[in-house]
């Protein structure tokens, strides 16, 4: 005889988390999916349109340009912030009272609300009154980020580097601190140069935290909205209109819910795909002989 007791009460225990996930992820996402295949003209009337919006977004030059700007932005800030963050972490003291001073200094930019960062840099870089903008112009450099696309990009990148390099520093520093002294001692005895110490001890030991740093910085920079929105609002022209800014323009500026929803889903899939590629590439080396 089968003595196993069927007890459906177990479902009660997973119910809270199911509800939570449903409300904060599944239902909103499904709403977006719902919008992405329909057309509406108001009055809460919807008409099924199939994949029309997806085809439209994928074919639109405006989307291509925004995506291109987004990829360029993310590539540049990764190329600057990761090496710079590692370099700063290497230069930071390992022992003594200065450690906490450095850590606090590093953490400061991360504590500032994002729109405040945008506003700070907006004013800081203003050509007529901002400390940075005015100084540059007084030095004879023609700098005006509200007019020049190139200046706008430089300012945007400088702001992001200022804001987020600390995160890479803190992660890399954590990785460095976990290396036992014996490794450095052995390297000294083995006559290793400081480059060899970096290449064969510090870098391999930092690999896991750097993987996390790259993933976080990739996802966050690909999603970036608040700071550029406050700093340049996507301008001058469309020069700094990154994907998220364009998305908001479509969704809330033009109120094109269908195309905006389709764009959101494509945006989401791109991040998912690229994150997966990064992750696979950076952790895959472990399997090699």
């Amino acid at each position, binding site marked *: 005889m089968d003595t196993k007791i069927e007890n459906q009460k177990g479902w009660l225990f997973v119910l809270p988390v199911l509800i939570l996930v449903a409300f904060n992820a599944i239902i909103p996402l499904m709403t977006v999916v719902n919008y992405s295949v329909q057309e509406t003209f108001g009055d809460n009337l919807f008409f099924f349109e199939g994949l029309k919006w997806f085809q439209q977004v994928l074919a639109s030059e405006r989307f291509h340009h925004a995506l291109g700007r987004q990829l360029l932005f993310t590539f540049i800030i990764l190329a600057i912030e990761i090496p710079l963050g590692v370099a700063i972490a290497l230069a930071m003291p390992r022992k003594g009272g200065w450690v906490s001073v450095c850590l606090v200094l590093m953490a400061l930019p991360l504590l500032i609300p994002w729109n405040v960062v945008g506003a700070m840099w907006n004013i800081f870089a203003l050509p007529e009154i901002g400390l940075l903008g005015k100084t540059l112009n007084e030095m004879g450099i023609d700098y005006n980020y509200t007019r020049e696309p190139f200046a706008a990009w430089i300012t945007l990148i400088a702001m992001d580097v200022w804001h987020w390099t600390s995160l890479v520093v803190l992660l890399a520093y954590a990785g460095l601190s976990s290396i*036992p002294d*014996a*490794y450095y*001692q*052995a390297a*000294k*005895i*083995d*006559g*290793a*140069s400081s480059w*060899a110490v970096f290449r*064969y*001890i510090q870098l*391999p*030991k930092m690999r896991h935290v750097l993987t996390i740093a790259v993933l976080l910085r990739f996802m966050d920079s690909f999603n970036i909205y608040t700071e550029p929105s406050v700093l340049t609002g996507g301008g001058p022209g469309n020069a700094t209109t990154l994907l998220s800014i364009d998305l908001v323009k479509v969704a809330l500026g033009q109120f094109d819910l269908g195309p905006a929803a389709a764009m959101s889903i494509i945006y989401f899939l791109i991040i998912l795909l690229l994150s997966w590629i990064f992750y696979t590439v950076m952790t895959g080396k472990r399997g*090699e*002989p």
Partner: protein
Amino acid sequence: MARITLDNLRHSYMANPKGPADYALKQLDVTWEDGGAYALLGPSGCGKTTLLNIISGLLRPSEGRVLFDGDDVTDEPPVARNIAQVFQFPVVYDTMTVYDNLAFPLRNRGIPERDVKARVEVIAAMTDLTEMLPKRAAGLTADGKQKISLGRGLVREDVNVIMFDEPLTVIDPHLKWQLRSKLKELHTRIQRTMIYVTHDQTEALTFADRVVVMHDGYVVQIGTPVELFERPHHTFVGHFIGSPGMNVLACQVENGKAFFDGHPVTVDNPPAGSLQGKQTEIGIRPQFVRFGDDGIPVEIAKVSDAGRYRIVDARHGQSRINLLVAEDADIPASGARVSFDAAQTRLYADGWLVE
């Protein structure tokens, strides 16, 4: 190839050490002869690793000098001292192969690749790593990794001294024996100075020609295993070496004669001067205590069998006296008395042998 002298050495990890308690190493004057096989023996925390790191140059001593063949190298970095050191826990370069790990110290010194290959192969054969050579070091077991560490320590032939800091802690027991005898064999062959740090007396006594015993920041005795056993300079040495260790019994000294709880005890080293104000003790190894008709009355607390002999745990009041007796010897049931072999009974004052 060098004679290493530690001259008036003291070390403290504190910035402003006040009393002797603040020093990890307290006043050392030690000379390590070229080509010797030394063991540095002492309990955990007695300053062995500190001493090693000072010799290798990883630490700069607070006071005193380190001399290699008479040259002051106190401020020289490890590279300039040309030494090798193996650490307690395995250190391997994860991303390199086993081969590259072993070759690393040689390549850093610009040795031609042909010589590197020859040398690495010799060391790999010695440490049982030949089959592992093309593998990535990260994939090896703790045993394997420690063998790489050991191999990297041995791979350079021209070093002044090779130091091992409890290198076999993580190694399997059967392999421990094998590696230790290989080290010993290697020492006989290459005649380099080797310093082997351990807290295990068996390891120290089997490896070394001379054993340096450390206790609480001091070197208490340097001697051959036999000297350490027969004539401990400090009660700590007597107690630490030997199993069971030397019996150390508080005693009174009057007119140059020692008394244990009122019983006169003849010692091998009667004091020449006064020992007034010092804490005096008698040291006698369990091997040299015998049952007899007269002597010190004891009660027998426990007898344990240790194979070829038995260990008798006897008590006189609060004092504990161990004896070793033959397997077939009679152990008196009651009214037992013990006496000490006078030639092996020594007097200690404040821990140190009276001389």
